[in-house]
């Protein structure tokens, strides 16, 4: 009796969703994250325009930043996709990236509306040792969760994880929110401005598995429900210690946290090694998981790493909706 109840709880009601007829792959949202830039260019060179019955759009999202190999020119493009910024009036003073975000919203959106593309997949790199991470703003988008499960099952050359940034859609600031379904593929570690073959190959595998899943889904495959693990929810950020007088950073991330994204951080564990030799310890009460450890782009926000809670998500059986 107990086993049956447990099975009933674990097995959700099957879901059917419309086919994904328009898919977008975006690279160069940050102009110095090179795997996505070269992967999109390669897809364009191969003139890849279809994935089975779905049409494929490939976009270099921030061409000006790509041209100068910088993260952005005026402001971070991947923070410009909130409803508020997308609908703000454009003046002479409007930063380039805000204008570009509104252009992309016309191309791939409008965000939240029926005319939006079905799936946006945004390609990123990080200097953090995060392996392959899929990032999205909901764990109840079954398309995204099933894509995650396939990628996690099929890719064995690196750890595969899911990161949830839990925000209401209107406040989601990232480009993936333009599509009806959207997520980012984040691969690291790779220095900005560099393309590593192993990292490129890993990102390509993830994109291939995504497009493979889309084709299977569109052609009627039934995906069984179950549990997905290695899902991490953002809890809070940890900032670099600074000298109160000079405002200079006074420590480096401790060797026991550096390169150990997603490992456990317990109360009392070392977090920072001061240049003077002292250790700064984690003083929170909850055991959490650091990620984006020592991401170059976060220095300007003074963020050393984020902390996450780990969870498991139950997903329903999924099949394409037949008209």
């Amino acid at each position, binding site marked *: 009796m107990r086993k049956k109840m447990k099975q009933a709880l674990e097995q959700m009601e099957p879901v059917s969703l419309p086919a994904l007829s328009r898919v977008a792959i975006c690279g160069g949202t940050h102009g110095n994250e090179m795997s996505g830039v*070269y*992967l999109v*260019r*390669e897809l364009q*060179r*191969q003139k890849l325009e279809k994935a089975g019955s779905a049409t494929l759009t490939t976009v270099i999202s921030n061409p000006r930043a790509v041209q100068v*190999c910088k993260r952005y020119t005026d402001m971070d493009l991947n923070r410009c996709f909130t409803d508020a910024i997308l609908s703000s009036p454009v003046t002479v003073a409007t930063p380039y990236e805000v204008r570009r975000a509104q252009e992309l919203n016309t191309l791939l959106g409008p965000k939240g509306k029926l005319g939006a593309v079905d799936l946006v997949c945004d390609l990123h790199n990080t*200097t953090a040792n995060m392996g392959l991470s899929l990032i999205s703003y909901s764990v109840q988008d079954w398309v995204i969760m099933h894509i995650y499960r396939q990628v996690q099952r099929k890719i064995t050359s690196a750890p595969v994880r899911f990161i949830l940034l839990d925000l209401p859609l209107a406040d989601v600031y990232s480009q993936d929110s333009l599509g009806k379904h959207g997520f980012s593929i984040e691969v690291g*570690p*790779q*220095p*900005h*401005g*560099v*393309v*590593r*073959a*192993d990292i*490129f*190959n890993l990102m390509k595998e993830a994109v291939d598995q995504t497009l493979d899943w889309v084709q299977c889904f569109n052609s009627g495959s039934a995906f069984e429900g179950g549990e997905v693990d290695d899902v991490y929810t953002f809890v809070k950020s940890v900032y670099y210690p600074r000298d109160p007088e*000079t405002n*200079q*950073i006074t420590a*480096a*991330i*401790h*060797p026991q946290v*550096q390169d150990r994204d997603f490992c456990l951080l317990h109360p009392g564990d070392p977090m920072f*090694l001061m*240049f003077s030799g002292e250790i700064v310890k984690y003083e929170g009460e909850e055991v959490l998981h650091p990620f984006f450890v*020592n991401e*170059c782009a976060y*220095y300007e926000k003074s963020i050393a790493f984020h902390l996450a809670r780990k969870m498991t998500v139950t997903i329903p059986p999924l099949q394409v909706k037949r008209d």
Partner: protein
Amino acid sequence: MTSSTNVSCFHEARRVAIFGGTHGNEMSGVTLVNLWIQNGKEIHRKGVETKPFITNPRAVEKCTRYVDTDLNRAFTTENLSAPSGDDLPYEVQRAQQINEIFGPKGSPEAYDVIFDLHNTTSNMGCTLILESSKDHFNLQMMHYIKKAIAPDSCPVLLTEHPLLKYSTSRSVAKHPIGLEVGPQPQGVLRSNIFESMRVVLKHALDFIELFNEGLEFPPCTVDVFRVSEKMDYPRDTNGNIIAMVHPNLQDCDWEPLNPGDPMFQTFDGTTLRYEGAGTVYPTFINEAAYYEKQQAFVTTRRETLAAGAIKKT
């Protein structure tokens, strides 16, 4: 046994500079020099003036390699002798200022030693860069450092080459030494990289102190890697790269590359192989800053240099 007639005598090294931020996004040097400007106790040595100095403050402020032009290529005779003026690129003006403070390059008034602190995205470990095979003082220092950090290794890159040698900020001094530590992404500070650079510098300064106290260093040999050839990425007619450093070569700085070994991988998966005549030792493999300088890596050949005994005058 060394007879005193075979010992080269050098003046005491009384003026030593430590340069950080020659490239504004190479964070170990920027951080160490800023630390020592605030409190120089760690770099103090008896009888030596050790001056920590940020060479490219504007680039450091913007956390970028350079503002107008690469400072570490700017110390050419042409630049240093050009009439000064605000219309010159920032880094050329800066090179002239540095030459005035720490040089003039090639003159008896120049600083005795300059250490120039750099990071690289390449897996080069703690590399020491030597500009002249005839600098016995530097060879002896590098020999001392290598012994001090053993069993950890400290490869020595010799940049003496008619075409590939470049005019560095440190070249203003009588004895220029480059410290190139990696791998570290630009704009990032890694604790392990920071601490290794700190340790190498400590040993270098110890050597100078011992030398100044009158210690004689017996003849020695130093294994070096002499630069040979610059290898660019394969490119299309528009100049875009069409391949990446092959996974088998990536991170394999200082390891042998034999004819026929994989070298590049195209974006659609084809392997391109090394077609040189013999075995070489690549370094600066996949350095971020060198894409624009048309360099995927540089090949080197192994050599053993002999340094005679040295002591102070």
